[in-house]
């Protein structure tokens, strides 16, 4: 469903992505792991064109989308994103955070958007917090709102950029549960995470990235228990500890 081909990205002299090619099929939950600085976040941002790749193709349902004649805004409605630091709109209530996309991007009527937003908030277990402001929520609650916000524009896939890395340990579970439920409901997901439990139970495939390249690809148990490459082995042994 989403396919990237030979993606390269430079930031000045830094060659961040050095030819990345992979594909995610519909309904799959793909997990990407790798040391910090390996280009995982940049790769995700290349897929929804928050960062424009220097070379290579991004294809959604077979059609190339990183072309001058396709609006990146349209692409981002197809592929939602959840950030490490939540990035909820601080000046809007939880409900308004979820509604902003449907109302301002999709042109939905306010009543319809409100009903939909409430439904999504109920789905992430936060119906009671609709009128609270982001700063009044815990990290885990904020991230669940962010997931609802991403779902609100009805995307075909969602990218998760280390969604639990900024959370206190007691809140990680609730976010992963929401993500697992989302995966079970058939949402196509690309998840950058170091949560091994989540990766093993939810994903069918794991990519290991280092220094801008995909080093190894395989089923979770293979990557975690029997990695083929030295670099994968070194990394996995560090995070499994």
């Amino acid at each position, binding site marked *: 469903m989403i396919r990237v081909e030979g993606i390269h990205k430079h930031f000045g002299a830094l060659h961040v992505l050095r030819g990345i090619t992979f594909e995610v099929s519909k309904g799959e939950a793909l997990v990407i792991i790798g040391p910090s600085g390996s280009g995982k976040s940049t790769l995700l941002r290349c897929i*929804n064109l*928050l960062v*424009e790749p*220097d070379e290579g193709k991004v294809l959604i349902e077979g059609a190339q989308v990183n*072309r*001058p004649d396709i609006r990146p*805004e*349209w692409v*981002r*409605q197809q592929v*939602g*994103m959840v*950030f490490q*630091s939540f*990035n*909820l*709109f*601080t*000046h809007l209530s939880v409900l308004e955070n979820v509604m*902003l*996309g449907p109302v*301002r*991007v999709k042109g939905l009527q306010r009543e319809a958007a409100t009903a939909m937003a409430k439904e999504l908030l109920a789905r992430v277990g936060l119906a009671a917090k609709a009128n609270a*402001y*982001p*700063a*009044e929520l815990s990290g885990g609650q904020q991230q669940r709102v*962010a997931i609802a*916000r*991403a779902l*609100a*524009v009805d995307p075909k896939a969602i990218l998760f950029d280390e969604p639990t890395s900024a959370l206190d340990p007691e809140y990680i579970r609730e976010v992963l549960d929401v993500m697992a439920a989302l995966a079970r409901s058939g949402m196509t997901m690309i998840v950058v995470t170091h949560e091994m439990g989540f990766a093993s139970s939810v994903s069918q495939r794991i990519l290991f990235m280092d220094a801008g390249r995909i080093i190894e690809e395989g089923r979770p148990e293979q990557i975690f228990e029997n990695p083929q490459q030295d670099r994968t082995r070194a990394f996995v042994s560090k995070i499994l500890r």
Partner: protein
Amino acid sequence: MAGTLKDQERKRARAFDMMAGIALTVGAIVVLVEIFVGRSGFDFGWVVDHLPGFLNATQLTFYVTTVAFGAGLGIGFLLGWARTARWIPLDKIVRDRERLREEGTSLVAARIRTIPLILLSMVKYLVRRIGDAYVEIIRGTPLFVQIVFIWSILLVNYPRLEQKELFAGLIALTANTGGYQSEIFRAGLQTVHSGQVEAGRAIGLSRWGAMRHVVLPQALRLIIPPLTNEYIGLLKASSLLIVIGVSELTGYGRNLAFTSFKIFEVFAVATAIYLLITVPVSKIVQYFEVRYRIPGFGIQQPAEARV
């Protein structure tokens, strides 16, 4: 439990604050009475007779300040935004052209299709550089000189223009406050965290949409205090229009003082009027600031200080 130790301390502090305030006010009244009616005598009757003239002049001051400030808001926002912008996206232009070439578009057609992007970035670049120069000129010269300079331009080029003093004054004040407000806006816009824009873009908002629905509502809340300062500063600065003969509050007062010799009364009234505008303005703005404050955003005040 009603009377914890903390509550008692707070009550005591509040009582002290009130007593100090009363003492200061009483002291000030005593001094004022001594000045006004003690020795030389304050001619209240004369002041009341001339109040309509003062009010007219006040209206002019208020009008000039508000119009200049309003126009300055527009200039300030656009220029402030332009000056936060990035460098020319040269690599994007080249990349788009190469991509079109790869897809089999002819070289000429590919070049033509990137022309709008090139023009747009050139305009953006020019606006930014001109904006930089403009702000430097406004900040680097006295308002006094700016007023006289613009007036002299009108005087030389449009000698028959009616009310050219007022017109020159309006242009000078607008240009001046526009420059300062663009700096206020730039700082405000840049203070909003970049993750907010990214999140806005990620749900499909355009650049303008993210500005309007995400950045601006946050930036405006942050820059209300400096904008209020700017308005009050501009109101006071409008007194400089005296130099080109605009009869706003200060100018009117000076003329009246020279013809009536009631110098003390005139400037006492002018002082009172300026204060009667500036103090309520800052109080009203403070009220709105608290009213539209959002939990966890901007500077938090202690619960006691809230309205």
